[in-house]
């Protein structure tokens, strides 16, 4: 087997897996911080119960995100050493800054939040969860700026003598619009993920009429913030689609299944791809719609895959510059579809709140826990689209994936680690889901009764 393909599979597997946990950490951290702040300000024990209940789920998820994140920092060097040599001068900086600014902050203050309850002044304990939330968002910012460089390299020159790209403008790197757009999109998705998570679990409890105060309040906060967050994701995505037309036209054409350039451009309602994933079998298109999506008018043109391929061959030499279109096409549609359903879910949530929990609509809550899957689907397909749409480039226009792998690795070595990661990750997922479902079903009213005699602790006291 080809070491490049294996390394790509490993990167995809470990990264998609890591990103199962990241968005919930990003969003839920802020939710818990808000809940604890409400408790701090009002003294209402409902907020205290909310903080404890969601805080515990946050912690379980956080641990998974942290440990799978270590792999991310190592594998650029492990599997992609030529990439690391070529752009390390640029790409290493945001990674190092992420560790220094964000990792230290979130880990240290999480320890303080977790163990410091009762040992510290209340406001210090409260501040520590805010610092955890800020830390994880900072971490997202710097890693997304690093990814932004891979999509749209800025602030560098090619040093031919050293045979690599070198940073000449740090400010350009950290204000790269591509990275900042990713940050907007990702943070909003984090809030949306946490919102659907809270809505789903709250719905489960509300159906069983337990801890209604806690879960109605949680439901309210999540429905409102969730609706805004998903709208924000949509707006970010829309903006990204528009800049993609200019900066990564191949990604846009491939996700639309658009082989020939069109002006005005049509939107694919359904395209059937051949077995290569890059050829057309059948397609049904709606005229004008793509121009509207990409430019807010009905006239602009979109360059097709075939024209871009010719253009890139002239620019970069012979080769296949077309990404796996079928993957981008369906990833995009699953992401957008899941996002639209999420809008409906939060709208339904807002409707229930507005109508003061009408009995005849409450039975629909039973679908809410299933909807927790939607953000996970959208988050994963979104990243698959982002990364696969850039193929064959690892850094757009600068370095190809096939030229980036570590030359010393054999297929056997990568297969060994890939299988190892898959076994480990499946096992951990079983344990994680077991714990998440277990603590998601706990009735917060009963927990407090049970532990009244214990020293208060954010994790509750487990004997």
């Amino acid at each position: 087997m080809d070491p490049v393909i294996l390394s790509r599979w490993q990167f995809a597997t470990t990264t998609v897996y890591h990103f199962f946990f990241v968005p919930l950490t990003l969003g839920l951290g802020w939710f818990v911080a808000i809940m604890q702040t409400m408790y701090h300000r009002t003294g209402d024990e409902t907020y205290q119960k909310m903080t404890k209940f969601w805080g515990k789920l946050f912690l379980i998820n956080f641990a998974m995100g942290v440990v799978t994140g270590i792999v991310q920092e190592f594998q650029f060097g492990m599997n992609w050493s030529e990439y690391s040599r070529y752009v390390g001068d640029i790409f290493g900086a945001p990674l190092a800054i992420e560790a220094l600014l964000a990792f230290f902050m979130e880990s240290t203050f999480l320890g303080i939040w977790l163990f410091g309850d009762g040992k510290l002044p209340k406001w210090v304990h409260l501040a520590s969860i805010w610092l955890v939330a800020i830390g994880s968002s900072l971490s997202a910012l710097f890693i997304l700026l690093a990814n932004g460089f891979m999509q749209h390299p800025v602030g560098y020159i090619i040093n031919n003598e050293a045979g690599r790209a070198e940073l000449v403008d740090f400010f350009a790197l950290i204000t790269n619009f591509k990275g900042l757009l990713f940050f907007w999109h990702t943070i909003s998705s984090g809030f949306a993920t946490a919102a659907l998570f809270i809505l789903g679990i709250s719905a489960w409890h509300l159906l069983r009429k337990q801890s209604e105060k806690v879960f109605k309040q949680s439901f309210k906060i999540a429905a409102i913030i969730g609706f805004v967050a998903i709208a924000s994701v949509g707006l970010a995505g829309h903006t990204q689609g528009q800049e993609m037309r200019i900066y990564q036209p191949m990604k846009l054409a491939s996700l639309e299944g658009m082989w020939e350039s069109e002006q005005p451009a049509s939107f694919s309602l359904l395209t059937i791809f051949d077995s290569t994933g890059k050829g057309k079998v059948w397609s049904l298109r709606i005229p004008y719609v793509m121009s509207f999506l990409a430019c807010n008018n009905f006239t602009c043109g979109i360059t097709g895959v075939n024209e871009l391929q010719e253009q890139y061959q002239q620019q970069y030499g012979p080769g296949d510059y077309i990404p796996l279109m079928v993957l981008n096409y369906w990833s995009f549609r699953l992401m957008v579809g899941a996002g639209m359903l999420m809008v409906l879910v939060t709208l339904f949530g807002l409707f229930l709140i507005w109508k003061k929990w009408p009995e005849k609509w409450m039975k629909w809550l039973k679908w809410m826990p299933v909807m927790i899957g939607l953000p996970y689907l959208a988050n994963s397909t979104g990243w698959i689209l982002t990364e696969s749409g850039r193929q064959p480039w690892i850094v757009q226009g600068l370095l190809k994936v096939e030229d980036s792998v570590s030359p010393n690795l054999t297929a056997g070595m990568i297969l060994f680690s890939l299988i190892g990661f898959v076994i480990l990750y499946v096992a951990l997922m079983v344990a994680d889901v077991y714990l998440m479902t277990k603590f998601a079903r706990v009735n917060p009213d009963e927990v407090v009764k049970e532990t009244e005699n214990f020293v208060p602790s954010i994790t509750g006291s487990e004997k």
Partner: protein
Amino acid sequence: MSVETLQTIWFVLIAILWVGYFFLEGFDFGVGMLLPFLGKNDTERRAIINTIGPHWDGNEVWLLTAGGATFAAFPNWYATLFSGFYIALFLLLVGLIVRGVAFEFRSKDQNPRWRSFWDWCIFAGSLVPALLLGVAFANLVKGVPIDARMVYTGNLGTLLNFYGLLGGLSLVAVFILHGINFLNMKLSGDLLARSRRLAPMTWVVAFVFLSSLMIATVLMTDGVANHGPIVMIVPLLSVVSMLLAGSLIQKKREGWAFSLAGLAIILIPVSYFLIMFPRVMVSSTSPNFSLTVSNASSSAYTLNVMSVVALFFVPLVLAYQVWSYWVFRKRMETNPDKLTY
């Protein structure tokens, strides 16, 4: 500043990150390795885990920051090291992953088999990374096959030589002692009495390994040839410091024993980095192929930017990490109602 100065500064900064990592994660690895043996029942094990509960994650970030700083300041070093030691690093990652999850998951279920499973994960997840880091570092200094393109040409077996294994086992031994010394400052009651009884024996093992490693370092690396005999003062200081730690353990001066054994431990990476300088990875294939601070480094611009970032944020990070240790300075009671994890 000249690029040479910047390269030296970043070499020193990365050395400091490793020093911090060895000192901090050293004791929590030690505590992890001791956990299944020292804790006789669940409450005791919880007390042991809670001594490092607030800190282990922050300690681990020193490793991540060392990795990130290496990537940013010396991309070729990062690339050759991480791709070269591929399988070892994969195993290290598996260790760190199961360990990190274990701390969080263990307390979330009452089932004794669940808890015992995660205890052994903490044990293995502390032992394996400590061993592998020791093996990897010893090989960095002794030299590994690296070709003219800075590509590692050995395999996992290449690392498992006498000096490498001695480096690995020594690190395990000194970390266990470091863990005991930490627990002696943190535990109370029966558990403390038992942990204290373990200290002298652990010290003997750690001392034997550390002295052997330091003697081997003098004999088997090119430190003396490159820098003259003066460079060997550091390994000597490490052994002396460990001797002093032994006498302090006898006197039950726990804080001082912890500090001096810790000093002995951090002098291990200090020795390594001194011997290596100005190289960052020694090539056993040809001295011309060694990675050095100059041929592995980033551009002067990147080093400058990173220096400014470090200047502002390293002191801040140090301040709040020190503060977090101060917050949790009290001894841990073996009382189930007062434990978090």
